[in-house]
């Protein structure tokens, strides 16, 4: 579903991603772990189409699309969704209205009829309950004054309403209480369908224990230096990243091969 080949990305004059390869087949959930500053958010942002990154080499194929040639809204319409590491506050734009506008923008992009306010309300109420977000947050401005956890729950709510084909979660689990963590895991597990996939960026094993990824990749210094099965997360917890650095010359080496 998603194939990234030899991706080099610069911010300013600094190369952040240095030949990154990653493939996520449909129906699978992949986790990406790595030390602070390794380039995880950079990868997520480049996939979602954020400005300020210069792709100097490499390709990203999503389904049949040349992803890097598309605008952010085209990527969203194609099914890409990024749950932000730092969700943005948007004063004056009510959360409910934002969510309906987003859903209807996707409907329009797909040539489907827009969803009316009352029908949307019913749909949103369901998802609000599912995600366990305080309904009062729906009439407030998007993320404005939300607590850290509320912002993350709001990302999951958007994920649940917009039903993307590829969900990219950038540390959505950070700062979440245990209940919310389960909500995230359930939300991602719901994507375990033949036409869906997820890329979950995390520092913590807790989330991976709940959602059990098909593959775990280790991103260090702008490249995937290790890939393995779910048990790689546990191994990383014991060894840390420092022990892995020596293996950079062999980016496809997999600890999970012992599985």
């Amino acid at each position, binding site marked *: 579903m998603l194939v990234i080949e030899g991706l080099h990305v610069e911010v300013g004059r600094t190369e952040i991603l240095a030949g990154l390869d990653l493939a996520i087949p449909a129906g699978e959930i992949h986790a990406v772990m790595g030390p602070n500053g390794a380039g995880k958010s950079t990868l997520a942002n480049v996939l979602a189409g954020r400005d300020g990154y210069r792709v100097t080499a490499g390709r990203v194929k999503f389904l049949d699309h040349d992803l890097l040639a598309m605008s952010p809204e085209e990527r969203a319409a194609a099914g890409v969704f990024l749950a932000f590491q730092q969700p943005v506050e948007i*004063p*004056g734009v009510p959360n409910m209205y934002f969510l309906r506008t987003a859903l209807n*923008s996707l409907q329009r992009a797909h040539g489907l009829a827009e969803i009316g306010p009352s029908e949307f309300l019913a749909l949103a109420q369901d998802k609000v309950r599912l995600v366990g977000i305080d309904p009062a947050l729906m009439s407030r401005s998007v993320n404005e004054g939300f607590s850290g956890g509320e912002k993350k729950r709001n990302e999951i709510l958007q994920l649940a309403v917009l039903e993307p084909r590829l969900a990219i979660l950038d540390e959505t689990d950070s700062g979440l209480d245990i209940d919310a963590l389960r909500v995230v895991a359930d939300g991602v597990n719901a994507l375990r369908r033949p036409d869906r996939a997820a890329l979950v960026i995390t520092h913590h094993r807790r989330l991976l224990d709940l959602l059990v990824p098909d593959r775990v990749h280790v991103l260090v210094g702008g490249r995937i230096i290790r890939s393995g099965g779910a048990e790689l997360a546990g191994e990383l917890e014991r060894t840390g990243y420092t022990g892995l650095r020596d293996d950079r010359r062999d980016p496809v080496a997999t600890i999970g091969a012992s599985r």
Partner: protein
Amino acid sequence: MTSQVAERTWQHNVHLSGGAPAERPGEPAWLSAARRSAFDWLSQHGFPTRKDEDWRYFDLAPVLGLAFSPNREPSIEPRAADLGAVAGPSLGGPRLVVLNGRYSPLLSDVTLGLGDGLHVASLAGEIRDGGPGLAQRWGDGAYSHAFDALNAALAVDGVYIELAPQTTADAAIEIVYLTVAAGDLPLVSPRSVIFAQAGSRATIVETHLGLGHGHSLTNSHTRVVLAAGAHVEHYRFQAEGPEASHLSVVEVHAGEASRFASRTLAVGGLRARHEVRARLVAPSAELRLDGLYLPAGEQCHDNPVLVEHLAPGCTSRQLYKGIVKDAGHGIFNGHVIVGAAAVGTEAHQTNKTLLLSDRAEVDTRPRLEIFTDEVAATHGAAVGQLDQDALFYLRSRGIPDRDAQAMLVAGFAADVLDGFAPGPVRGLADRLVGSHLEAGSGAYQPEVKR
């Protein structure tokens, strides 16, 4: 044309066309005297120049360079349908129409919303038939500037509204000022007086609209007098034509424990200056002054505000927001004076500007002058562009760039517009803002740096 020549031409025109303080037939003596003194003031002080603090950013030269002629009949007689097309449906209460400075019984509709205790008349009618009270409420002889005095010298008509003590006007009272031009350079000088007696309540919506084509100059003055405990919600929509010059003053005299809210919206005119001047003369009065202005194209919207706290325990809050597009020019010149007697004053002043183009121009000057202790006062100004992170966030959810920008612009305006009464008043505001932002080339089309 140098400004002196312009000024002489102007004075000449104004004299010739009957603006001179010669008495008008049937005019009460107090009014002749008031007009004469206004004219004297004007002759003495002359028109403002760029050297005047309050006119530093507003270009008057094009106004003074044109030979506007006062108090002419409108060159076209608009019909009710023409009015409806620009003014939209009634707000559910009386609609009083002032056509080129004169009350139009033909275009007005006073069948709705008139109840006991609410007195509504043309100003000319009130001068003719009303009691002596009008003389006191006409004005205090203090003029902000030459145009303010010019209005006092030239005005013959407008609207008079009086609310008896403890009266509540349920529906909004609407005053529509229609300026009609057809290449004849009209100078239009409407004057209205609103007197809210003790404990009365009303919502008053003043809308300035234009019809026809060519330059025009509207120079209006509205005086609002609030007795003890009166509450007035005052709206002012300025949506004049694309070549119009617009100068106006709303002057507020706030009595004890009265509450006055002014909410202004400027979308029209080529150059428009709307001044709000409020004096809090008795204890515990509350003032709320909000403004939203959206200069686009070559438009200039100037918002001078003067609040004088003259009694203890009064509150004033100002929130002015500008959305400046194309080569538009937005000006906020807010001045709060807290006098020696005004202990326990609370005064807040905020101005925020959103620049949607790199040709957009903005001048902002919040000022506080405090002459007493025990005052809680804040002021601040911020100028910014669309938040690119927010824009990306919206687009990443599938919302197209243009719509996403529109959402952010609307979000910026929200805290001002959310103060507008829900229903027809908010509806009118949304309609004016919507059509203004959609009009012209590339409504939201970004000149925003990416």
